[in-house]
């Protein structure tokens, strides 16, 4: 029987610096993985942290890490050629098949862009597979913008609304919360259009409210939850909400199910 707790070694092949505190680490990994899934990333002595997959390459996965905790702080001291311990991937992740042939709206707040980056990238690359693709991405300030180069590339094939809470100087982005741009989105077929919302809890709540007001159906909205996932395999109890374990039943939920989860 498999011992899920023993991690494997993964090499850092590249580090992409987005901001002072947010880097993407490209890690060696062979195996199945979907956007929205996560790995338990650890450095011995600093412990483990769940980090979502922000990109999938040939023999690599991208882990976008924000330097905010004990583990992530130490990971920032490690660079190309160094190694990290990983285990996973865990969680359900997004299934791009759910969105094929439809008008797709993605609303992301801050680091919330990481788990959906794979979804946006897929449809920006395979334009014929979606009717339309709109991304509304919000960040605190221009200095906090993640995946700047990706966003520039996506703009060629998708409608991208980049917004910041506050800005100084010329940043080519709007000022304001993501929610204020939702009412202006043009949707042709409200019954079929799909939306994915990922970000801080309050941002998700008001974005979903906005989408429902716009006319989207509850079952066509997906959200992804962030919780403390110590084990990733439905044992440690930290991520349990109601009858659901975010690590094995989520972190991606359809809204009709997700809305019933009360912390």
């Amino acid at each position, binding site marked *: *029987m*498999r*011992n*899920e*707790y*023993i*991690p494997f*070694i993964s090499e850092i092949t590249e580090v992409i610096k987005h901001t002072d505190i947010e880097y993407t680490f490209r890690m060696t990994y062979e195996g199945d993985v979907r956007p929205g899934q996560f790995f338990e990333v*650890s450095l*011995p*002595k*600093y*412990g*483990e*942290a769940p980090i979502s997959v922000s990109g999938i390459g040939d023999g690599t996965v991208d882990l976008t890490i*924000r330097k*905010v*905790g004990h583990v*992530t702080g130490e990971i920032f001291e490690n660079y190309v050629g160094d*190694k990290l*311990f990983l285990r996973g991937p865990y969680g359900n992740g997004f299934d791009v098949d759910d969105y094929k042939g439809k008008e797709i709206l993605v609303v992301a707040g801050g680091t919330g862009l990481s788990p959906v980056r794979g979804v946006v990238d897929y449809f920006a690359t395979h334009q014929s597979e979606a009717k339309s693709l709109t991304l509304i991405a919000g960040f605190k300030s221009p200095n906090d913008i993640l995946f700047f180069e990706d966003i520039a590339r996506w703009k060629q094939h998708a409608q991208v609304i980049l917004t910041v809470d506050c800005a100084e100087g010329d940043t080519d982005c709007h000022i304001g919360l993501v929610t204020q741009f939702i009412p202006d989105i043009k949707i042709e077929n409200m019954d079929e259009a799909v939306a994915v919302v990922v970000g*801080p*809890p309050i941002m998700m709540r008001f974005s979903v409210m906005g989408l429902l007001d716009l006319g989207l159906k509850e079952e066509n909205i997906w959200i992804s939850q*962030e*919780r*403390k996932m*110590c*084990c990733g*395999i*439905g*044992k*440690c*109890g*930290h991520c*349990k909400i*109601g*009858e659901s*374990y975010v690590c*094995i039943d989520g972190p991606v939920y359809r809204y009709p199910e997700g*809305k*019933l989860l*009360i*912390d």
Partner: protein
Amino acid sequence: MGYTLSKEQFETLVNRLSEQYQVFAPVKFVGGNTFTDVDVIRYDQVKNPEEIVLDQKSDYSFKEVLLPLSETLFYYTEEQTKEADIPRGEAVVFLRSCEMHAVKVLDDIYLNNKFEDYYYKRLRDKIKFIVIACPESFDSCFCVDMGTNKPEGQDMIIEQQGDQFLVVNENPQWEAYFEGYAKVDQAPSYAKENKVKVHIPENLNPNIAKSSIWEEYDTRCIACGRCNFVCPTCTCFTMQDILYSDNGKAGERRRVQASCMVDGFTDVAGGGSYRKKFGERMRFKMMHKVYDFRKRFGYNMCVGCGRCDDVCPEYISFSANINKLEEGMKEVGEEHA
């Protein structure tokens, strides 16, 4: 069909079991409680059958035999890991009917919740259970209403009857221990009534979160987590890495018991946390015990042992809280959205 054993014969039985198994049972630690000059009854490996406490409820449950307070998962150096050896061999644990039902809860979480847990399974595969029958309920128990007063799935049941022991063996491999003993046609007793009665309303649903019944716990509860640590079905843990002080590059990863009532349980990177109010934590724990687990696995998690009521330093009663749920549902209504 059982056997009647004298006290001496019972002790011989335990000694013979000890030759093949490590025997774990409730043992009294004189002066071992948190408070001065107070004893504690908790699980330990039994060296002498006389140590086994049969006439009182243990303060802590048997769960530590399957889920140690702190369990080393693996040892690490910079780039290598080595799985920790199994901490014990074949074991026998003495426990009560409610706890036998708790074993099922532990199994469902650790073996049947999508993934099998490697460390749990290797201990679980090497354990046998002996139920200490409860002819009478203890003061705070509510096993009858939770449906856990009749034991299921054990290897043996023992019942102390004055100077004698009624022993019902349910493990065919153990029949040899009883050769030469007189058979008796008697079934072991079980508690048929508790002083404490609980009622879980049929219309209970997550809407109860909006009720005001949780507010009193915001101030009464001190979030010490003792209710979780004594509970036979509380199984949460947190990962912990330790580093050897003589070699700063090697150490071990452990899992240590955690509590949903204690600060930090839900902290996520960046400062977010959920359920800041102690009443919310009380509601979260309560709903897991009498609702959420049932929705997932089909039966209630709480086994009614009453240890949480016994241990609370603020005299908060979980069973009394269960009995407030009906009033709470009346207050908030059933419609859940």
